[in-house]
């Protein structure tokens, strides 16, 4: 058995009202999207979520045997996220780092990969999802481009785990409709077609394999749109825990941010499922919550959602651009 012994999320402070984006861009908008501050990047946001997860785990950063990250928006082809998060946490030397990307399935693949590491090495592993979706003013989904991070610490066992990981499933179909090149807006394609042949074929099959007959009461899903996320959970009769209304599209990180939110708000003894659908298929992870659910510290996902400052459409676009200064002088 592998358990989740710590969970944490992170959401940037700034939010853009999607109706303000719609007013300037066209279309309609409801809810808000998180906007990273100018001085935030994938590594810093991942570290915030990881710090929160580790603070609730009975393990120090230096004791981690592996760090696995999932992201569909890492701007670098070569640079990576996992090794930098590991370094910041003090996990250096004989530490496995893995950067998963290319599909929102990276979230459940990261959980599966970390679980296998824990079983094989009897050592703790950290899983972090982090995304800052590009906001392209020419794209229809510019208002929904969100940002966030989520993390869990997996261990062979723990005194008071938040959850037991009970099952994993995947469905590789090779189906791709929604896709995106670096620096370009997503090609969203035909949502109905994707609903039927993409998510409709992959997500239920993966979920069934993970649940193995268990009936979940709570669920989270990562998918390219809110509609596809809902469809990814079409086969299960469970309450969906989602931060999408407040955070926007958080890419692969949505699965881990929402999982942290689920574990902070769940009762012990609940069956839950995490489903990630993206290019190529779907992955699913089943879990049973335990006594370590909830949070006693101040850095809960709920706090991050409440603590916010409104920002403008212009900054929603501008803050995602890389900073171009080489040093700030301190007195």
């Amino acid at each position, binding site marked *: 058995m592998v358990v989740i012994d710590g969970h944490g999320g992170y959401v940037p402070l700034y939010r853009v009202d999607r109706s303000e984006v719609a007013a300037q861009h066209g279309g309609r908008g409801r809810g808000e999207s998180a906007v990273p*501050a100018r001085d935030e*990047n994938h590594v810093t946001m991942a570290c915030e979520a990881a710090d929160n997860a580790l603070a609730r785990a009975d393990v120090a950063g230096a004791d981690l045997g592996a760090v696995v990250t999932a992201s569909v928006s890492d701007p670098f082809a070569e640079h990576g996220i996992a090794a930098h998060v590991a370094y*910041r946490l003090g996990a250096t030397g004989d530490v496995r780092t893995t950067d998963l990307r290319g599909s929102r399935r990276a979230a459940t693949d990261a959980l599966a990969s970390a679980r296998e590491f824990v079983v094989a090495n009897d050592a703790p592993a950290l899983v972090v999802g982090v995304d800052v979706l590009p906001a392209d003013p020419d794209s229809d989904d510019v208002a929904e481009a969100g940002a966030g991070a989520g993390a869990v610490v997996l261990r062979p066992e723990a005194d008071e785990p938040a959850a037991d990981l009970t099952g994993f499933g995947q469905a590789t179909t090779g189906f791709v409709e929604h896709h995106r090149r670096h620096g370009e807006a997503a090609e969203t394609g035909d949502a109905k077609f994707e609903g039927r042949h993409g998510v409709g074929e992959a997500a239920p099959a993966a979920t069934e394999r993970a649940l193995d007959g268990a009936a979940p009461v709570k669920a989270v899903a990562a998918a390219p749109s809110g509609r596809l996320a809902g469809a990814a959970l079409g086969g299960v009769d469970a309450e969906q825990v989602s931060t999408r209304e407040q955070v926007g599209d958080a890419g692969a990180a949505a699965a881990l941010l929402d999982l942290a939110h689920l574990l902070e708000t769940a009762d012990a003894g609940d069956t839950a499922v995490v489903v990630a659908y993206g290019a190529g298929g779907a992955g699913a992870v089943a879990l049973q919550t335990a006594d370590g659910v909830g949070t006693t510290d*101040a850095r809960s996902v709920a706090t991050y959602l409440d603590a916010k400052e409104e920002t403008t459409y212009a900054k929603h676009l501008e803050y995602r651009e890389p900073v*171009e200064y080489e040093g700030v002088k301190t007195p």
Partner: protein
Amino acid sequence: MSGPRYERSKRQDQHLIGFECQACGWVSFPEEKRTCKRCGDAPAEMEEVQLAERGEIQTFVVQQYLPDDIETPQPVAIVDLPQEGEGEPARAYGLLTETDLEEIDVGTEVVARFRELFSDGERPINSFKFSVPREEKA
């Protein structure tokens, strides 16, 4: 060690490690000084100490004129960071982030935040800034 400064000081920049003078207890941060700035001991015998991620603003200045990419007003604070163990706090200079001027004063408690400090070409260099705790904005 040679190489760029951010590689040489990477460990203390990302881990809040200070250097305590064994002669007088003064804590150097982020650089390890060869000469103690307080007692003048040279070469000073410095021991590594872990600093806490929460401290108090001692004083601050507000920068108004900065390169275009940096938002102004940009407050810069002197923050006393206690040690995790016994000993004197370290005095750290730090930029404040996601913090409005109305939120800070001398004595305000701030937390260390891991942020992008500058870029080396395209590469982000991350280290610590300070902010009021996020929960105080909820």
